Protein backbone atom coordinates (compact mmCIF):
# COMPACT_ATOMS: atom_id res chain seq x y z
CA UNK A 1 0.00 0.00 0.00
CA UNK A 2 2.70 2.41 1.01
CA UNK A 3 4.61 1.40 -2.04
CA UNK A 4 1.67 2.17 -4.32
CA UNK A 5 1.18 5.57 -2.76
CA UNK A 6 4.83 6.36 -3.17
CA UNK A 7 4.70 5.31 -6.79
CA UNK A 8 1.62 7.46 -7.34
CA UNK A 9 3.34 10.48 -5.86
CA UNK A 10 6.42 9.84 -7.93
CA UNK A 11 4.35 9.60 -11.10
CA UNK A 12 2.65 12.90 -10.45
CA UNK A 13 6.00 14.56 -9.85
CA UNK A 14 7.23 13.15 -13.14
CA UNK A 15 4.13 14.44 -14.91
CA UNK A 16 4.49 17.92 -13.50
CA UNK A 17 8.18 18.17 -14.24
CA UNK A 18 7.76 16.82 -17.76
CA UNK A 19 5.08 19.41 -18.37
CA UNK A 20 7.38 22.11 -17.10
CA UNK A 21 10.14 20.87 -19.38
CA UNK A 22 7.98 20.84 -22.49
CA UNK A 23 8.48 23.73 -24.87
CA UNK A 24 4.99 25.22 -24.73
CA UNK A 25 4.69 25.48 -20.99
CA UNK A 26 8.24 26.75 -20.63
CA UNK A 27 7.47 29.68 -22.87
CA UNK A 28 4.52 30.49 -20.65
CA UNK A 29 6.64 30.26 -17.55
CA UNK A 30 9.86 31.81 -18.84
CA UNK A 31 9.64 34.80 -21.11
CA UNK A 32 12.95 35.50 -22.82
CA UNK A 33 11.92 38.95 -23.97
CA UNK A 34 10.88 39.96 -20.47
CA UNK A 35 14.24 38.87 -19.07
CA UNK A 36 16.06 40.72 -21.83
CA UNK A 37 14.16 43.90 -21.04
CA UNK A 38 13.63 43.78 -17.30
CA UNK A 39 15.85 41.09 -15.89
CA UNK A 40 14.47 38.31 -13.72
CA UNK A 41 14.18 40.13 -10.40
CA UNK A 42 16.58 37.66 -8.82
CA UNK A 43 19.88 39.33 -9.55
CA UNK A 44 20.00 39.40 -13.33
CA UNK A 45 19.48 42.87 -14.76
CA UNK A 46 17.93 43.34 -18.19
CA UNK A 47 20.35 42.44 -20.99
CA UNK A 48 19.45 45.62 -22.89
CA UNK A 49 21.34 47.68 -20.34
CA UNK A 50 24.58 46.63 -22.03
CA UNK A 51 23.50 44.91 -25.23
CA UNK A 52 21.17 47.61 -26.55
CA UNK A 53 17.44 47.90 -27.09
CA UNK A 54 17.42 45.43 -29.95
CA UNK A 55 20.44 43.34 -29.04
CA UNK A 56 22.61 45.36 -31.37
CA UNK A 57 25.38 45.77 -28.79
CA UNK A 58 27.41 48.82 -27.89
CA UNK A 59 30.36 48.73 -30.19
CA UNK A 60 32.59 51.33 -28.54
CA UNK A 61 32.21 49.71 -25.12
CA UNK A 62 32.98 46.24 -26.47
CA UNK A 63 29.51 44.89 -25.61
CA UNK A 64 28.72 42.42 -28.37
CA UNK A 65 25.73 42.22 -30.62
CA UNK A 66 23.44 39.34 -29.65
CA UNK A 67 20.69 39.86 -32.24
CA UNK A 68 20.55 37.07 -34.77
CA UNK A 69 23.23 34.93 -33.16
CA UNK A 70 22.67 31.18 -33.03
CA UNK A 71 20.49 30.27 -30.03
CA UNK A 72 22.56 27.29 -29.00
CA UNK A 73 25.74 29.33 -29.22
CA UNK A 74 24.25 32.02 -26.94
CA UNK A 75 22.94 29.43 -24.50
CA UNK A 76 26.34 27.75 -24.33
CA UNK A 77 28.02 31.06 -23.59
CA UNK A 78 25.64 31.71 -20.68
CA UNK A 79 26.30 28.23 -19.31
CA UNK A 80 30.04 28.73 -19.76
CA UNK A 81 29.94 32.02 -17.85
CA UNK A 82 28.42 30.05 -14.99
CA UNK A 83 30.95 27.23 -15.13
CA UNK A 84 33.86 29.63 -15.55
CA UNK A 85 34.95 28.18 -18.89
CA UNK A 86 34.39 31.73 -20.06
CA UNK A 87 35.47 34.17 -17.41
CA UNK A 88 33.73 37.54 -17.24
CA UNK A 89 33.22 39.68 -14.18
CA UNK A 90 29.84 41.05 -15.28
CA UNK A 91 28.41 38.02 -17.04
CA UNK A 92 29.30 35.44 -14.40
CA UNK A 93 26.91 36.79 -11.73
CA UNK A 94 24.30 37.66 -14.35
CA UNK A 95 24.27 34.22 -15.95
CA UNK A 96 24.44 32.53 -12.56
CA UNK A 97 21.33 34.44 -11.47
CA UNK A 98 19.44 32.96 -14.43
CA UNK A 99 17.98 29.47 -14.25
CA UNK A 100 18.86 27.05 -17.03
CA UNK A 101 15.43 27.55 -18.56
CA UNK A 102 15.83 31.31 -18.40
CA UNK A 103 19.21 31.10 -20.12
CA UNK A 104 17.68 29.03 -22.88
CA UNK A 105 14.69 31.37 -23.23
CA UNK A 106 16.76 34.51 -23.44
CA UNK A 107 19.12 32.86 -25.94
CA UNK A 108 16.13 31.86 -28.07
CA UNK A 109 14.78 35.39 -27.86
CA UNK A 110 17.97 37.05 -29.09
CA UNK A 111 18.51 34.49 -31.84
CA UNK A 112 15.19 35.50 -33.38
CA UNK A 113 15.87 39.23 -33.46
CA UNK A 114 16.76 40.43 -36.91
CA UNK A 115 20.39 41.06 -37.67
CA UNK A 116 21.00 44.77 -38.04
CA UNK A 117 21.81 45.27 -41.71
CA UNK A 118 25.13 46.98 -41.97
CA UNK A 119 27.07 47.63 -45.11
CA UNK A 120 30.83 47.72 -45.20
CA UNK A 121 32.28 50.84 -43.67
CA UNK A 122 35.98 50.39 -44.25
CA UNK A 123 37.37 53.58 -45.61
CA UNK A 124 41.03 52.79 -45.13
CA UNK A 125 42.97 49.79 -46.35
CA UNK A 126 43.67 47.06 -43.85
CA UNK A 127 45.85 44.56 -45.68
CA UNK A 128 46.99 42.72 -42.57
CA UNK A 129 43.45 42.20 -41.31
CA UNK A 130 42.12 41.25 -44.71
CA UNK A 131 44.92 38.75 -45.34
CA UNK A 132 44.31 37.05 -42.00
CA UNK A 133 40.56 37.02 -42.52
CA UNK A 134 40.57 35.71 -46.08
CA UNK A 135 43.75 33.64 -46.24
CA UNK A 136 45.05 33.00 -42.73
CA UNK A 137 48.63 32.70 -41.55
CA UNK A 138 49.53 29.21 -42.59
CA UNK A 139 53.20 29.34 -41.64
CA UNK A 140 51.81 29.06 -38.12
CA UNK A 141 48.93 26.85 -39.21
CA UNK A 142 46.31 29.53 -38.74
CA UNK A 143 43.45 29.00 -41.21
CA UNK A 144 41.65 31.94 -42.75
CA UNK A 145 38.96 33.15 -40.32
CA UNK A 146 36.32 32.82 -43.05
CA UNK A 147 37.09 29.10 -43.38
CA UNK A 148 35.11 28.51 -40.18
CA UNK A 149 33.17 31.73 -39.67
CA UNK A 150 31.86 31.87 -43.23
CA UNK A 151 32.25 34.40 -46.05
CA UNK A 152 33.03 37.84 -44.61
CA UNK A 153 32.46 36.29 -41.19
CA UNK A 154 28.66 35.95 -41.26
CA UNK A 155 28.84 32.97 -38.93
CA UNK A 156 28.27 29.22 -39.41
CA UNK A 157 25.97 27.23 -37.13
CA UNK A 158 26.25 26.94 -33.39
CA UNK A 159 30.02 26.72 -33.07
CA UNK A 160 31.23 29.57 -35.27
CA UNK A 161 29.55 32.87 -34.39
CA UNK A 162 29.33 35.86 -36.72
CA UNK A 163 32.28 38.24 -36.68
CA UNK A 164 31.06 40.66 -39.31
CA UNK A 165 29.67 43.88 -37.93
CA UNK A 166 30.65 42.84 -34.43
CA UNK A 167 32.38 45.31 -32.12
CA UNK A 168 36.10 45.46 -32.93
CA UNK A 169 36.91 45.95 -29.26
CA UNK A 170 34.84 42.91 -28.37
CA UNK A 171 36.50 40.74 -31.03
CA UNK A 172 39.98 41.82 -29.97
CA UNK A 173 39.14 41.25 -26.32
CA UNK A 174 38.00 37.70 -27.05
CA UNK A 175 41.24 36.85 -28.80
CA UNK A 176 43.20 38.26 -25.87
CA UNK A 177 41.07 36.18 -23.49
CA UNK A 178 41.72 33.01 -25.48
CA UNK A 179 45.37 33.85 -25.57
CA UNK A 180 45.67 34.12 -21.81
CA UNK A 181 43.19 31.32 -21.13
CA UNK A 182 40.44 33.24 -19.36
CA UNK A 183 38.15 32.21 -22.19
CA UNK A 184 38.56 28.48 -22.73
CA UNK A 185 35.22 27.36 -24.12
CA UNK A 186 36.15 26.99 -27.80
CA UNK A 187 35.61 23.61 -29.45
CA UNK A 188 38.84 21.55 -29.63
CA UNK A 189 40.83 24.61 -28.53
CA UNK A 190 40.64 25.93 -32.09
CA UNK A 191 40.58 29.58 -31.07
CA UNK A 192 43.23 29.18 -28.40
CA UNK A 193 45.64 28.03 -31.07
CA UNK A 194 44.63 30.84 -33.42
CA UNK A 195 44.84 33.58 -30.79
CA UNK A 196 48.19 32.37 -29.48
CA UNK A 197 49.59 32.50 -32.99
CA UNK A 198 48.64 36.13 -33.57
CA UNK A 199 50.50 39.23 -32.46
CA UNK A 200 48.69 42.09 -30.75
CA UNK A 201 48.80 44.19 -33.91
CA UNK A 202 47.40 41.30 -35.97
CA UNK A 203 44.59 40.87 -33.43
CA UNK A 204 43.70 44.53 -33.71
CA UNK A 205 43.87 44.48 -37.51
CA UNK A 206 41.69 41.41 -38.00
CA UNK A 207 39.17 42.55 -35.38
CA UNK A 208 38.90 45.88 -37.15
CA UNK A 209 38.52 44.20 -40.53
CA UNK A 210 35.58 42.06 -39.43
CA UNK A 211 33.89 44.83 -37.50
CA UNK A 212 33.68 46.79 -40.73
CA UNK A 213 32.25 43.96 -42.85
CA UNK A 214 28.62 43.81 -43.94
CA UNK A 215 26.47 41.69 -41.63
CA UNK A 216 24.80 39.88 -44.50
CA UNK A 217 26.10 37.39 -47.02
CA UNK A 218 27.38 39.08 -50.14
CA UNK A 219 26.07 37.31 -53.22
CA UNK A 220 29.28 36.17 -54.84
CA UNK A 221 31.72 35.52 -52.09
CA UNK A 222 34.95 34.85 -53.94
CA UNK A 223 37.84 37.07 -53.03
CA UNK A 224 37.66 39.36 -56.00
CA UNK A 225 33.93 39.79 -55.62
CA UNK A 226 34.27 40.43 -51.93
CA UNK A 227 36.75 43.16 -52.58
CA UNK A 228 34.57 44.70 -55.26
CA UNK A 229 31.46 44.34 -53.08
CA UNK A 230 33.37 46.16 -50.39
CA UNK A 231 34.34 48.87 -52.81
CA UNK A 232 30.74 49.18 -53.95
CA UNK A 233 29.43 49.57 -50.43
CA UNK A 234 32.21 52.03 -49.72
CA UNK A 235 31.03 54.05 -52.66
CA UNK A 236 27.53 53.90 -51.24
CA UNK A 237 28.77 55.17 -47.92
CA UNK A 238 30.85 57.86 -49.51
CA UNK A 239 28.03 58.69 -51.90
CA UNK A 240 25.66 59.14 -48.99
CA UNK A 241 27.97 61.64 -47.41
CA UNK A 242 28.32 63.79 -50.47
Amino acid sequence: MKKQLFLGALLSVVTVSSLAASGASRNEVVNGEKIAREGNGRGAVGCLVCHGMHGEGVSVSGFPRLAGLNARYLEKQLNDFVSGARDNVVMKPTATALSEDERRAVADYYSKLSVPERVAITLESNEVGEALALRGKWDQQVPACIQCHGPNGVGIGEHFPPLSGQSALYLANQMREWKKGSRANDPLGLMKHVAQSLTESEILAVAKWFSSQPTFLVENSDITSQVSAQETTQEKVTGGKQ
Partner: protein
Amino acid sequence: MRKLILSGLVSVPLWMVLNVGIALENSTQVKPAQANPAQAKPVQSSPVSKKAFVPPPESEIPEGKFGDTIRLGRDIFLHTRANAPEYVGNDLNCSNCHLDAGRRANSGPLWAAYVRYPMYRPKNDKVNTFAERLQGCFMYSMNGKAPPADSEVIKALTAYSYWLATGAPTGVNMPGFGYPKQGFEPKQAPSYERGEAIYAEKCALCHGENGEGVHVKKGEFAFPALWGANSFNWGAGMHELNNAAAFIKHNMPLGLGGTLTDQEAWDVAMFMDSHERPQDPRYNGNIQETRKKYHDTKWSLYGIEVNGKVLGQGVK
Protein backbone atom coordinates in the same frame (compact mmCIF):
# COMPACT_ATOMS: atom_id res chain seq x y z
CA MET B 1 24.01 6.96 -33.40
CA ARG B 2 24.33 3.93 -35.55
CA LYS B 3 26.14 1.07 -33.98
CA LEU B 4 28.63 -0.11 -36.49
CA ILE B 5 30.48 -3.26 -36.25
CA LEU B 6 33.75 -3.81 -37.81
CA SER B 7 35.35 -5.81 -35.07
CA GLY B 8 32.16 -7.77 -34.46
CA LEU B 9 31.08 -8.80 -37.91
CA VAL B 10 34.07 -8.40 -40.08
CA SER B 11 36.86 -7.38 -37.75
CA VAL B 12 39.46 -9.99 -38.48
CA PRO B 13 37.97 -11.04 -41.79
CA LEU B 14 38.08 -7.52 -43.21
CA TRP B 15 41.69 -6.94 -42.39
CA MET B 16 42.48 -10.39 -43.71
CA VAL B 17 40.72 -9.50 -46.92
CA LEU B 18 42.81 -6.39 -47.07
CA ASN B 19 45.92 -8.42 -46.45
CA VAL B 20 44.93 -10.80 -49.20
CA GLY B 21 44.69 -7.66 -51.24
CA ILE B 22 48.36 -7.04 -50.59
CA ALA B 23 49.29 -10.54 -51.66
CA LEU B 24 47.26 -10.33 -54.81
CA GLU B 25 48.38 -6.86 -55.57
CA ASN B 26 49.02 -6.61 -59.22
CA SER B 27 52.65 -6.16 -59.99
CA THR B 28 51.81 -3.15 -62.10
CA GLN B 29 50.56 -1.50 -58.92
CA VAL B 30 53.91 0.09 -58.39
CA LYS B 31 54.23 2.95 -56.00
CA PRO B 32 54.90 6.19 -57.83
CA ALA B 33 58.22 6.49 -56.06
CA GLN B 34 59.31 3.14 -57.54
CA ALA B 35 57.92 3.83 -60.95
CA ASN B 36 60.68 6.09 -62.02
CA PRO B 37 63.84 5.73 -59.98
CA ALA B 38 65.26 8.90 -61.46
CA GLN B 39 62.34 10.88 -60.08
CA ALA B 40 62.41 9.16 -56.73
CA LYS B 41 65.95 10.23 -55.85
CA PRO B 42 66.05 13.59 -54.18
CA VAL B 43 68.83 15.71 -55.56
CA GLN B 44 69.70 17.02 -52.15
CA SER B 45 69.95 14.82 -49.12
CA SER B 46 71.36 17.30 -46.64
CA PRO B 47 69.24 18.20 -43.61
CA VAL B 48 68.63 21.57 -45.26
CA SER B 49 66.54 19.82 -47.91
CA LYS B 50 64.13 18.74 -45.18
CA LYS B 51 63.04 22.30 -44.85
CA ALA B 52 59.97 22.91 -46.94
CA PHE B 53 60.18 25.08 -50.00
CA VAL B 54 58.52 28.47 -49.64
CA PRO B 55 56.60 29.67 -52.70
CA PRO B 56 56.67 33.38 -53.51
CA PRO B 57 54.16 35.64 -51.76
CA GLU B 58 51.04 36.52 -53.73
CA SER B 59 52.04 40.16 -53.72
CA GLU B 60 54.71 39.11 -56.23
CA ILE B 61 52.28 37.87 -58.86
CA PRO B 62 53.23 40.01 -61.85
CA GLU B 63 50.95 42.51 -63.53
CA GLY B 64 49.71 41.94 -67.07
CA LYS B 65 48.22 38.97 -68.89
CA PHE B 66 50.51 36.40 -67.32
CA GLY B 67 49.68 37.66 -63.83
CA ASP B 68 45.98 37.68 -64.69
CA THR B 69 46.19 34.03 -65.72
CA ILE B 70 48.00 33.14 -62.47
CA ARG B 71 45.32 34.94 -60.46
CA LEU B 72 42.59 33.17 -62.38
CA GLY B 73 44.28 29.85 -61.53
CA ARG B 74 44.35 30.80 -57.88
CA ASP B 75 40.69 31.78 -57.93
CA ILE B 76 39.71 28.51 -59.62
CA PHE B 77 41.69 26.71 -56.94
CA LEU B 78 39.93 28.53 -54.10
CA HIS B 79 36.41 28.65 -55.55
CA THR B 80 36.28 25.87 -58.05
CA ARG B 81 32.61 25.66 -58.88
CA ALA B 82 32.24 29.42 -59.12
CA ASN B 83 35.13 29.70 -61.57
CA ALA B 84 35.03 26.42 -63.51
CA PRO B 85 31.36 25.35 -63.25
CA GLU B 86 31.26 23.28 -66.42
CA TYR B 87 33.87 20.82 -65.13
CA VAL B 88 32.74 20.39 -61.53
CA GLY B 89 30.22 17.84 -60.24
CA ASN B 90 30.29 18.58 -56.50
CA ASP B 91 30.67 21.57 -54.24
CA LEU B 92 34.27 20.89 -53.23
CA ASN B 93 37.12 23.30 -53.91
CA CYS B 94 40.66 22.29 -54.84
CA SER B 95 41.75 24.08 -51.68
CA ASN B 96 39.78 21.66 -49.48
CA CYS B 97 42.49 19.02 -49.89
CA HIS B 98 45.38 21.34 -50.83
CA LEU B 99 45.39 23.82 -47.96
CA ASP B 100 46.47 27.44 -48.11
CA ALA B 101 45.54 27.65 -51.79
CA GLY B 102 47.99 24.89 -52.72
CA ARG B 103 50.90 26.44 -50.87
CA ARG B 104 51.07 24.25 -47.77
CA ALA B 105 53.68 21.50 -47.47
CA ASN B 106 52.33 18.01 -46.67
CA SER B 107 49.01 19.04 -48.11
CA GLY B 108 49.60 18.20 -51.77
CA PRO B 109 51.31 21.53 -52.54
CA LEU B 110 51.15 22.63 -56.17
CA TRP B 111 54.80 23.74 -56.26
CA ALA B 112 55.92 20.19 -55.47
CA ALA B 113 53.46 18.58 -57.88
CA TYR B 114 54.38 20.85 -60.76
CA VAL B 115 58.04 19.81 -60.80
CA ARG B 116 57.28 16.06 -60.82
CA TYR B 117 55.65 16.02 -64.23
CA PRO B 118 55.68 14.51 -66.81
CA MET B 119 55.56 11.29 -64.75
CA TYR B 120 54.58 7.67 -65.24
CA ARG B 121 51.50 6.87 -63.14
CA PRO B 122 50.29 3.33 -62.46
CA LYS B 123 46.79 4.76 -62.01
CA ASN B 124 46.40 4.96 -65.78
CA ASP B 125 49.56 3.10 -66.77
CA LYS B 126 51.03 5.84 -68.90
CA VAL B 127 53.20 8.91 -68.77
CA ASN B 128 51.05 11.82 -67.62
CA THR B 129 51.60 15.46 -68.30
CA PHE B 130 50.77 17.96 -65.57
CA ALA B 131 47.63 18.86 -67.56
CA GLU B 132 46.53 15.22 -67.46
CA ARG B 133 47.13 15.12 -63.73
CA LEU B 134 44.90 18.18 -63.30
CA GLN B 135 42.25 16.55 -65.50
CA GLY B 136 42.28 13.58 -63.14
CA CYS B 137 41.46 15.87 -60.22
CA PHE B 138 38.39 17.14 -62.05
CA MET B 139 37.20 13.64 -63.02
CA TYR B 140 37.63 12.04 -59.60
CA SER B 141 38.08 14.49 -56.73
CA MET B 142 35.69 17.03 -58.22
CA ASN B 143 33.41 14.27 -59.57
CA GLY B 144 33.15 16.24 -62.78
CA LYS B 145 34.69 16.06 -66.22
CA ALA B 146 38.12 16.78 -67.58
CA PRO B 147 38.66 20.27 -68.96
CA PRO B 148 40.40 20.05 -72.37
CA ALA B 149 44.18 20.28 -72.04
CA ASP B 150 44.20 23.57 -73.97
CA SER B 151 41.28 25.08 -72.00
CA GLU B 152 41.56 28.30 -70.02
CA VAL B 153 40.96 26.35 -66.82
CA ILE B 154 43.95 24.02 -67.31
CA LYS B 155 46.07 26.87 -68.60
CA ALA B 156 45.28 29.02 -65.55
CA LEU B 157 45.85 26.22 -63.02
CA THR B 158 49.12 25.33 -64.74
CA ALA B 159 50.23 28.96 -64.70
CA TYR B 160 49.41 29.25 -61.00
CA SER B 161 51.31 26.03 -60.20
CA TYR B 162 54.28 27.03 -62.32
CA TRP B 163 54.43 30.40 -60.60
CA LEU B 164 54.21 28.83 -57.13
CA ALA B 165 57.14 26.59 -58.09
CA THR B 166 59.33 29.58 -58.94
CA GLY B 167 62.91 28.59 -58.10
CA ALA B 168 62.08 24.94 -57.33
CA PRO B 169 64.22 22.15 -58.84
CA THR B 170 62.56 19.88 -61.41
CA GLY B 171 62.39 16.10 -61.35
CA VAL B 172 62.65 15.65 -57.59
CA ASN B 173 60.31 14.73 -54.80
CA MET B 174 60.55 17.92 -52.83
CA PRO B 175 60.15 17.67 -49.05
CA GLY B 176 56.49 18.18 -48.24
CA PHE B 177 55.21 16.85 -51.61
CA GLY B 178 51.87 15.06 -51.68
CA TYR B 179 50.70 13.64 -48.39
CA PRO B 180 53.72 12.16 -46.57
CA LYS B 181 53.33 8.40 -46.69
CA GLN B 182 56.86 7.11 -46.43
CA GLY B 183 56.98 4.68 -43.51
CA PHE B 184 53.46 5.71 -42.58
CA GLU B 185 51.76 2.42 -41.74
CA PRO B 186 49.08 1.61 -39.19
CA LYS B 187 50.39 -0.22 -36.12
CA GLN B 188 47.01 -1.85 -35.67
CA ALA B 189 44.49 -2.54 -38.39
CA PRO B 190 42.50 0.66 -38.85
CA SER B 191 39.26 0.42 -36.91
CA TYR B 192 35.91 1.72 -38.07
CA GLU B 193 34.61 1.82 -34.51
CA ARG B 194 37.53 3.76 -33.10
CA GLY B 195 37.37 6.04 -36.12
CA GLU B 196 33.69 6.64 -35.55
CA ALA B 197 34.37 7.78 -31.98
CA ILE B 198 37.16 10.13 -33.08
CA TYR B 199 34.97 11.46 -35.86
CA ALA B 200 32.16 12.27 -33.42
CA GLU B 201 34.58 13.99 -31.06
CA LYS B 202 36.74 15.96 -33.46
CA CYS B 203 35.33 16.03 -36.98
CA ALA B 204 31.53 16.13 -36.86
CA LEU B 205 31.73 19.65 -35.44
CA CYS B 206 32.49 20.95 -38.92
CA HIS B 207 31.81 18.11 -41.37
CA GLY B 208 28.44 17.11 -39.89
CA GLU B 209 27.33 13.94 -38.14
CA ASN B 210 26.84 12.20 -41.46
CA GLY B 211 29.82 13.62 -43.29
CA GLU B 212 27.51 15.80 -45.33
CA GLY B 213 29.46 19.03 -44.75
CA VAL B 214 27.92 22.44 -44.18
CA HIS B 215 26.91 24.84 -46.91
CA VAL B 216 27.24 28.60 -46.74
CA LYS B 217 24.72 28.74 -49.55
CA LYS B 218 23.73 26.57 -52.49
CA GLY B 219 26.79 25.35 -54.33
CA GLU B 220 29.30 26.55 -51.77
CA PHE B 221 30.60 24.60 -48.83
CA ALA B 222 31.75 26.16 -45.60
CA PHE B 223 32.94 22.69 -44.60
CA PRO B 224 33.25 20.06 -47.32
CA ALA B 225 31.29 16.79 -47.49
CA LEU B 226 33.52 13.80 -46.74
CA TRP B 227 31.25 11.20 -48.30
CA GLY B 228 27.88 10.98 -50.02
CA ALA B 229 26.67 12.42 -53.31
CA ASN B 230 28.38 15.80 -52.89
CA SER B 231 31.86 14.48 -52.14
CA PHE B 232 34.77 13.08 -54.17
CA ASN B 233 34.07 9.87 -56.06
CA TRP B 234 35.46 6.34 -55.76
CA GLY B 235 38.19 7.13 -58.26
CA ALA B 236 39.74 9.91 -56.16
CA GLY B 237 43.04 9.36 -54.36
CA MET B 238 41.46 10.43 -51.10
CA HIS B 239 39.31 7.29 -51.06
CA GLU B 240 42.50 5.32 -50.41
CA LEU B 241 43.22 4.92 -46.73
CA ASN B 242 46.88 5.88 -46.90
CA ASN B 243 46.21 9.18 -48.66
CA ALA B 244 43.33 10.03 -46.36
CA ALA B 245 45.21 9.08 -43.20
CA ALA B 246 48.32 11.05 -44.21
CA PHE B 247 46.25 14.10 -45.11
CA ILE B 248 44.31 13.90 -41.86
CA LYS B 249 47.43 13.37 -39.78
CA HIS B 250 49.12 16.49 -41.09
CA ASN B 251 46.18 18.79 -41.67
CA MET B 252 43.14 17.96 -39.56
CA PRO B 253 41.40 19.29 -37.55
CA LEU B 254 41.88 22.48 -39.53
CA GLY B 255 44.51 24.55 -37.75
CA LEU B 256 45.46 21.68 -35.45
CA GLY B 257 47.21 19.39 -37.93
CA GLY B 258 49.65 16.97 -36.29
CA THR B 259 47.66 16.67 -33.07
CA LEU B 260 46.06 13.28 -33.83
CA THR B 261 48.19 10.20 -33.26
CA ASP B 262 49.10 8.19 -36.37
CA GLN B 263 46.68 5.47 -35.29
CA GLU B 264 43.86 7.97 -34.78
CA ALA B 265 44.46 9.31 -38.28
CA TRP B 266 44.28 5.79 -39.74
CA ASP B 267 41.15 4.97 -37.76
CA VAL B 268 39.26 8.08 -38.76
CA ALA B 269 40.36 7.61 -42.39
CA MET B 270 38.93 4.09 -42.16
CA PHE B 271 35.65 5.49 -40.90
CA MET B 272 35.48 8.20 -43.57
CA ASP B 273 36.37 5.90 -46.46
CA SER B 274 33.94 3.17 -45.37
CA HIS B 275 31.01 5.25 -46.59
CA GLU B 276 29.42 5.43 -50.01
CA ARG B 277 30.32 8.14 -52.47
CA PRO B 278 29.72 8.73 -56.19
CA GLN B 279 30.71 5.87 -58.48
CA ASP B 280 34.14 5.66 -60.07
CA PRO B 281 33.60 6.96 -63.63
CA ARG B 282 35.64 3.96 -64.88
CA TYR B 283 33.10 1.53 -63.40
CA ASN B 284 32.27 -1.17 -65.95
CA GLY B 285 29.07 -2.45 -64.33
CA ASN B 286 30.83 -4.96 -62.09
CA ILE B 287 32.27 -3.84 -58.77
CA GLN B 288 34.72 -6.71 -58.38
CA GLU B 289 36.05 -6.35 -61.92
CA THR B 290 36.40 -2.61 -61.39
CA ARG B 291 38.22 -3.26 -58.14
CA LYS B 292 40.60 -5.71 -59.79
CA LYS B 293 41.37 -3.30 -62.58
CA TYR B 294 41.63 -0.01 -60.68
CA HIS B 295 41.54 -0.58 -56.95
CA ASP B 296 43.57 -3.71 -56.35
CA THR B 297 45.39 -2.32 -53.34
CA LYS B 298 45.11 -2.85 -49.63
CA TRP B 299 44.36 0.83 -49.20
CA SER B 300 41.11 0.80 -51.16
CA LEU B 301 37.83 -0.34 -49.62
CA TYR B 302 36.14 -0.33 -53.02
CA GLY B 303 34.45 -3.72 -53.45
CA ILE B 304 35.12 -4.64 -49.81
CA GLU B 305 32.29 -5.58 -47.49
CA VAL B 306 31.95 -3.28 -44.48
CA ASN B 307 29.07 -3.57 -42.02
CA GLY B 308 27.30 -6.05 -44.25
CA LYS B 309 27.44 -3.94 -47.39
CA VAL B 310 29.83 -4.13 -50.29
CA LEU B 311 31.30 -0.69 -50.87
CA GLY B 312 31.48 0.80 -54.35
CA GLN B 313 27.76 0.89 -55.15
CA GLY B 314 28.00 4.63 -55.75
CA VAL B 315 25.49 7.30 -54.77
CA LYS B 316 23.97 10.03 -56.89
